[in-house]
């Protein structure tokens, strides 16, 4: 929805980014339309090539293992991934234990502390509240 800090990333890095988001969406064993919409939105936002998106969508059925997608990524990128993974996990209204476990694994890979992960999740909640305010306007 906003400039995302990912525009300078390589196509390979963006692919890994999207793979992780798909993994998170599929983590609780069910993929709802809201999760697909948010992943499509994030792939669009960082302008992943349409043909690559087709490949990434295949992960909805068979997600790439998290460790594989995160392997050798720099911490800075992993932290952006963590931010957006938190959005995907929250999109259906709650964090499933499996989603939390995956978020903790991403945080660990990015050397993000529990406190900072907690701050990120609070921040996602704040954004949720801000977004809902739209309905009061119109």
């Amino acid at each position: 929805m906003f400039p995302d800090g990912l525009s300078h990333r390589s196509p390979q890095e963006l692919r890994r980014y999207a793979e992780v988001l798909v993994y998170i969406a599929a983590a609780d064993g069910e993929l709802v339309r809201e999760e697909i919409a948010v992943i499509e939105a994030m792939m669009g936002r960082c302008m992943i090539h349409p043909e690559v998106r087709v490949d990434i969508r295949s992960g909805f059925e068979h997600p790439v293992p998290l460790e594989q997608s995160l392997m050798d990524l720099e911490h800075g990128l992993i932290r952006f991934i963590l931010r957006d993974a938190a959005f995907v996990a929250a999109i259906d209204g709650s964090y499933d234990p499996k989603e939390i476990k995956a978020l903790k694994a991403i945080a660990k890979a990015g050397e993000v502390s529990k406190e900072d992960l907690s701050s990120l999740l609070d921040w996602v909640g704040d954004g949720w509240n801000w977004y809902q305010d739209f309905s009061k306007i119109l």
Partner: protein
Amino acid sequence: MLPDTVHKLPREERFAYARLLAYIARIDDELTIDEMAMFEQRLGTALLSPNQREMIRDDLRNPPSLEECMENLSGEAGRLALRDAVMMAAADGNVDEDERDALEDISEVLGLKEDAVDQLLQWTVKGYRWMKEGYDILDNLEE
């Protein structure tokens, strides 16, 4: 990216929603990377078919008229389109006069309150502040 209802609209309304965004994107004859990223993001949210996405991208090259865009837009789809048009117009940090006029026209066609665009712009600014806080959190994690 946040909880949304665009994907719940009927397919033809999602298409109309996206056409309106294409119209706004081209209103000042200039499409910045930030606007394009926002546009692609909203196309993603709308869960359009690949064919529909191609048609919408054609609309970017040959923008439709506002009247054409407003066809098939129900009240809810229209309001969501106006909200996202405001965010897209502001994506490059500035809403120019042509964009502002177009947003006001859409609001009028939808029969919204006179200050609806103003309120949406204020809401968008709050959203940008919130996004900045997210960057700050990530920046403070740097070693």
